[in-house]
C-alpha cells in the first residue's frame, strides 16, 4: 500500500490550518482526515476544538472562551461542557471529549 501523505501538513492555498488529523476550514467547518467525516460547527465550537488540538488543557478552555466572547465564567464553563458532551457521541471527534 502506498503511504498517504502525512496528515500533519498544511493545505497550501486551501486555508486549512495545520492539525494532526483534524483540518479547519475557516471557523465553522472541520474535516477529519482519518474518518473522512466533516462537520459544520459554531464558531465557539471551532475555537474550543482549535484550542484542544493545539494542546490547551481542558481546564483552561473556559478562560479562553470567557476572554474571547466576554461572557461570564459560568456560561463559558457550561458551553465547554456541553460541547465536550456532544463530542463524546461522535467517534471521529471523541478524543476531544472528557
Amino acid at each position, binding site marked *: 500500500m502506498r503511504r498517504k501523505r502525512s496528515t500533519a501538513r498544511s493545505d497550501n492555498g486551501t486555508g486549512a490550518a495545520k492539525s494532526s488529523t483534524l483540518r479547519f476550514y475557516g471557523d465553522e467547518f472541520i474535516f477529519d482526515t482519518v*474518518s473522512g467525516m466533516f462537520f459544520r460547527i459554531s464558531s465557539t465550537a471551532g475555537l474550543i476544538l482549535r484550542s484542544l488540538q493545539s494542546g490547551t488543557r481542558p481546564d483552561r478552555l473556559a478562560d479562553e472562551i470567557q476572554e474571547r466572547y466576554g461572557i461570564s465564567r459560568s456560561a463559558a464553563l457550561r458551553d465547554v461542557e456541553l460541547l465536550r458532551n456532544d463530542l463524546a457521541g461522535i467517534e471521529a471527534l471523541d478524543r476531544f471529549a472528557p
Partner: protein
Amino acid sequence: MKHKSRPPVVAVTGLHRGENPQPGPAVTASLRRRFPDLRIIGLSYDPLESGQYAAGLDRIDAAYLVPYPRLGHQELLKRLDAIARKDPFDIVIPCLDSEIPNYLRLQRDLAKRGISCVLPDAKAMQRRGKENLSKLCEDIGVPTPATRASSNLDELLVFAGSLGYPTYVKGRFYEARLVHSPLELRIAFDELMQAWGGPVLVQEVVVGEEYDVVGLGDGKGGIVGSCTIRKMLRTKAGKGFGGVVIADPSLDKLAQKVIRALKWNGPFELEFVKSPRRPHQLFEMNPRFPAWVDFPSQLGCNLPARMVARMLDAKPIPLADCAVGQMYVRHCVDIVGNIADLAQMASTGERSGPRPIHFNSR
C-alpha cells in the same frame, strides 16, 4: 507482450454510465489522460450503452457488440476473433464482474493470439467471490458482516431468522435488496436466482459509513498503488456518487491483508462499512476497476495507465499519492447521438466512435 508494427490497441468493456455506472468510460478516460492517441475500442452488450456516444475524454474509437457473459467463453472467443480480424487489438480490460470468469477461461487462448489481459489467479478470484468472502475474511482476520450463501431458500430463511430483519439479500454478481420479512426474502430469492443463478446471499445489515479502496495488485501480494475514499453521496442502490480521499492506517492494513492473502494480480476495489465504535468490515471485493477510477487518475494516481504500461512492457508510470481531502462528485450529463448510429450498431453489431469534441468550437 509481442512487439507489433502498429501502435497498441486496447479493448474496454462495461460502457454504460446509467444509474449504476459501469467502469469502462472511467478506464477509457484514465488511459487517454496518459496516452491521448491510444486507440480504444469498446466491447458492448447493448446498442444503447451510453459510453458508445461519449465524445469527450472517455470516447471510444469504435464499438462492437459482444455476447452476454451467460452465453459462455466459447461464444465470447468467437466474437473476439471476429472483431480482431477486422480491428486487431492487443489488450482487453474487462470491467464487469460477470465477465471475469469467461476471460479467465480464455486467458491462454487470448495469449496465443497476442492479446493480454491482466487477471487474478482463478483460485484468488473464487476466494473473494461473494459466496466465499466471509470464509476468506475469517481465515485472515478481517472483519466482515455475517453472511450465508446458499441456493437453498429454507437454509437462508433460517439464517435470516437468526440475524433478525431487515437483512440484505444479494445476487451472485449484482444487486442487493433490503428485505423486512420472510415473504420479502422469498420474493427476492426467486428474482435473484432467476437473474444471476445461485447461490444467493443473505447478509447482516451493518449501518454506517462506507469506505472504498481502489488499487492494483502486483500478483505477489503487494499493492502497486491505491486510493482510499469515504463515500460522501450514496444512491438508493448504494452506489457512491461522491467521495473524499482519506488516510486511515487501519483501513490500509486491512487492504494489505486481503491483497497479500490472495496474491492479487490486477485491479481491485475493496468495499468496507463501518458502524460507530466497530471496526471496518469488508463486505465486497470487486475484481476490476471501479466506476470512480478516473478520480484518482485526475489526482496523478492513474492505475489503468500504470497497468497498461506494464502490459506493454513500458517504463512504469509514477503514481502520486492521492491528497487527503480531494473529493469528487458525480455529475450526469446528456450526450447527443444520432439514431443512425444506434441503427448501425443494432443491425451490424459494430460502429465507429463519435468524433472527439473540440471545446473551442461552437
